[in-house]
C-alpha cells in the first residue's frame, strides 16, 4: 500500500478503529453452503438505494401541487436532459423493488430463516415490506394524472371501509373530504420525508440484526430440522467452514449488476405510462390500481355489500398479523420447506391465490371500444342483428358482461351465449332474470320496448 494512503488509514484507525471494524465486517465468516438465494436481501437494498438516489433528483424539479404536479412531470420528461430516463429508472425501479422484496420474503419463509434466533429480523422485515408497499401507494399519486388520481380515490375509499375508524382514516389520508391539494401534499411529505426516514431506520435495525446473528444457514445438513438448544452449537461450528462475507459480496455484486442492467433497459426502452392530467369531474374514467394492488382490487369481487370490509380490512389485517406473528406460533423444529409441509402448503396456497388474483387483474377485459371501432363492427353485421347490437350498447350491458373480450366480468361472458341459450329463453331472462333463475343478480329490464328486446335476444342468440 502506498505510504500516503497507509498514513491516512492510520489516522482514521487512531480515531475510529477503522481497521478492526472493517475486518470484523468484511471478514466475518458465513455459515457453510450460503446460496444465490441469499443475495435477494442485498439486491433489495441495492434497489432501495437506487430509488432513493433517483428520488432525490426527481425532487429537484417536481412540484407537489395539483396545479403544477402534472406539468412539472411533463417538463421533467420532455425538457430536462435524461429526464425520461431518470423518471423511468424511478418508475420501473419501484415495481422491481416490490418484486425483489417479495422474493426476499419468500426466500426467508421457505428456508425457515424466521426461526430462532431471527424472529425479530423477520418482524422488522415484514414492516419493511409494508413500508415498500406504502411507498408504492403514496408515490403512485404524485404524477397527478388520471390513473394516479382515480387509483387514489379508490385506495382512500378502501381505507374508508374499515370498521369504526373508517371515516376518520379516510379523511386523515385525504387531508379532507376529497382527494385534492392536501392529499397530494400529504402523500408527497410521506413519500419523500417520513417513509424514507422510517424505512432506513428499519433497514438499519434489520442489517444490524443480520450482522449480530449472522446470515441464516441454508436448511440442509443438520439445519433442515433443528431444535433451539442445538442451534447455537451447530451454527458456530458451521460458521468456520463457510466463505467470508467479503467473498459473499461478490455474489451480491453478480446479482446486482444484471438487475441494474435490466432496470436500465426498462428505463431506456419502455415509456412510463402517463395519462391526461387528473380530472375529478370525469365520469367516463375507469379506475385501475397499480399491478401490485390488483389482488386487492380483484378480491373485492368476492365480497359485495355488507361483506366489503372482509376484503378491504379483515383479510389484509389477518394476513399482516399472520406474517408478523409467524415466528411466534410456528415453533416447530423443521426449517427445510419439505420438513414442514403444513406451513409450506399454506404459503403455497396463499401464493397461488395472490398469483391468480393478480393474473385476473392483469388480464381483465378493457372497457368496450366506442365510436369508430364500434360502428365498423356494426357495419359488418346484417341489419337485423346490428339493431340488437345497438340495444346492447345503449342499455349498458357491457357494464356487467364481457362480449368478445371487452366489458366488465361481473356477470357471465356473453361471447358465445347463443350456444347455451335460444332467443326465447334470453327474452324471458332479460325481462325478469329472477323469475327464470332465482339466484340471478341481474336487475330486470321490464321497461325495455318489446322490439328492442326482440332485437337484443336475436343478436345474443346469434353469438355462437
Amino acid at each position, binding site marked *: 500500500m502506498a505510504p500516503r494512503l497507509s498514513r491516512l488509514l492510520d489516522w482514521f484507525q487512531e480515531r475510529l*478503529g477503522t481497521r478492526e471494524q472493517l475486518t470484523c465486517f468484511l471478514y*466475518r465468516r458465513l455459515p457453510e453452503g450460503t446460496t444465490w438465494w441469499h443475495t435477494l436481501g442485498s439486491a433489495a437494498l441495492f434497489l432501495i438505494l437506487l430509488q432513493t438516489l433517483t428520488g432525490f433528483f426527481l425532487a429537484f424539479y417536481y412540484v407537489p401541487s*395539483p*396545479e403544477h404536479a402534472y406539468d412539472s412531470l411533463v417538463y421533467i420528461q420532455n425538457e430536462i436532459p435524461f429526464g425520461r430516463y431518470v423518471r423511468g429508472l424511478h418508475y420501473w425501479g419501484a415495481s422491481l423493488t416490490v418484486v425483489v422484496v417479495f422474493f426476499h420474503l419468500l426466500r426467508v419463509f421457505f428456508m425457515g430463516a424466521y426461526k430462532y434466533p431471527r424472529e425479530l429480523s423477520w418482524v422488522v422485515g415484514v414492516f419493511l415490506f409494508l413500508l415498500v408497499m406504502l411507498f408504492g401507494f403514496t408515490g403512485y399519486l404524485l404524477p397527478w394524472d388520471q390513473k394516479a388520481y*382515480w387509483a387514489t*380515490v*379508490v385506495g*382512500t*375509499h*378502501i381505507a374508508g*371501509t374499515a370498521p369504526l375508524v373508517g*371515516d*376518520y382514516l379516510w*379523511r*386523515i*389520508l*385525504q*387531508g*379532507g*373530504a*376529497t382527494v*385534492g*391539494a*392536501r392529499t397530494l401534499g400529504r402523500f408527497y411529505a410521506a413519500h419523500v420525508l417520513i417513509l424514507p426516514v422510517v424505512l432506513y431506520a428499519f433497514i438499519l435495525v434489520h442489517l444490524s440484526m443480520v450482522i*449480530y446473528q*449472522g446470515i441464516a444457514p441454508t436448511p440442509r445438513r443438520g439445519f433442515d430440522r433443528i431444535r433451539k438448544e442445538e442451534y447455537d452449537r451447530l451454527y458456530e461450528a458451521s460458521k468456520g467452514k463457510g466463505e467470508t462475507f467479503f467473498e459473499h459480496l461478490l455474489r451480491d455484486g453478480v446479482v446486482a449488476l444484471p438487475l441494474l442492467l435490466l432496470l436500465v433497459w426498462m428505463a431506456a426502452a419502455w415509456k412510463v405510462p402517463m395519462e391526461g392530467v387528473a380530472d*375529478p*369531474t*370525469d*365520469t*367516463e*374514467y*375507469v*379506475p385501475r390500481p397499480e399491478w401490485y394492488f390488483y389482488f386487492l382490487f380483484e378480491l*373485492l*369481487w368476492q*365480497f*359485495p*355489500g*355488507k361483506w*366489503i370490509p372482509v376484503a*378491504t380490512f379483515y383479510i389484509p389485517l389477518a394476513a399482516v398479523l399472520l406474517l408478523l406473528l409467524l415466528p411466534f406460533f410456528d415453533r416447530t423444529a423443521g426449517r427445510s420447506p419439505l420438513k414442514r409441509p403444513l406451513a409450506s402448503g399454506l404459503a403455497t396456497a396463499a401464493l397461488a391465490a395472490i398469483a391468480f388474483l393478480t393474473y385476473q387483474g392483469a388480464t381483465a377485459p378493457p*372497457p368496450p371500444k366506442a365510436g369508430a371501432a364500434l360502428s365498423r363492427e356494426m357495419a359488418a353485421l346484417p341489419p337485423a342483428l346490428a339493431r340488437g347490437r345497438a340495444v346492447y350498447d*345503449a*342499455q*349498458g350491458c357491457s*357494464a*356487467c358482461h364481457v362480449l368478445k373480450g371487452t366489458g*366488465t366480468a*361481473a*356477470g357471465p361472458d356473453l361471447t358465445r351465449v347463443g350456444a347455451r341459450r335460444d332467443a326465447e329463453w334470453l327474452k324471458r331472462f332479460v325481462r325478469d332474470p329472477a323469475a327464470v333463475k332465482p339466484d340471478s*343478480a*341481474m*336487475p330486470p*329490464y321490464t*321497461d325495455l320496448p318489446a322490439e328492442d328486446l326482440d332485437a337484443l335476444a336475436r343478436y345474443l342468440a346469434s353469438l355462437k
Partner: protein
Amino acid sequence: MERKASGPLGESVSPPAVAPGRRRLLTVVLGGILTAIAGVVGAPLAAFFALPALRLSERRWLEVGRLAEFPEGEIKKVLARPLTAQAWPYETPRVTVYVLNRGAGKFTVFNIHCTHVGCPVRWNPQAGRFFSPCHGGVFDRDGRVLAGPPPRPLDRYEYKVEKGVLYAGRAYKVTERLEFREWHHA
C-alpha cells in the same frame, strides 16, 4: 461473535450502582422533560396533521344551474361551480353532479362516486340506470342499488332553489329507503 454485553471498545460493562432515591429523581425529571416535549411539540403537530382533515367543512354552495335546464323527469350531468372563490387550496374548482328533476320543485342531486370503492358512475339514459365501471355496481334513477357490490344507495347533496337557480350544499348518505342517514363526512 461474542454474546455478552460489551462496550464499543470491547470491555464488558456492568451498570454502576445508583442510589434508589437518585434513580427515582432521574426518572421523574427525564419523564417530565419528555412529557413537556410531547405537550408543546407532539400534540400541536398531531393537531396540525389531523385536524384540517377532520374539520367539518362549512357549507359551501355550488351553483348547479338554472331550473329551466332540468326537464322534469330527466337526469342531467352538470359541472357545478362553487359560488365563492376559495383561497388555497383551490381544490375542485368544479364538481360533477347528476341532477334528477322529480317535478313539483323537487330535485335529487347525486354524488358521482359509487358507494362501493368510489369509481365514478355513469348515467345511461336509455337504460335508465347508473353504472359503475369497476365491479358491476348498478343503481336505478333514484340511486337505489339494483345489482353488484355497493353497500348503500348513491350519496346525495342537499339543495336549495333561489331565484330560479339550483344550488347544491353538503353531501349526505341515505338509507335503503332513501331517507337522510348522515352527513357524508361526519
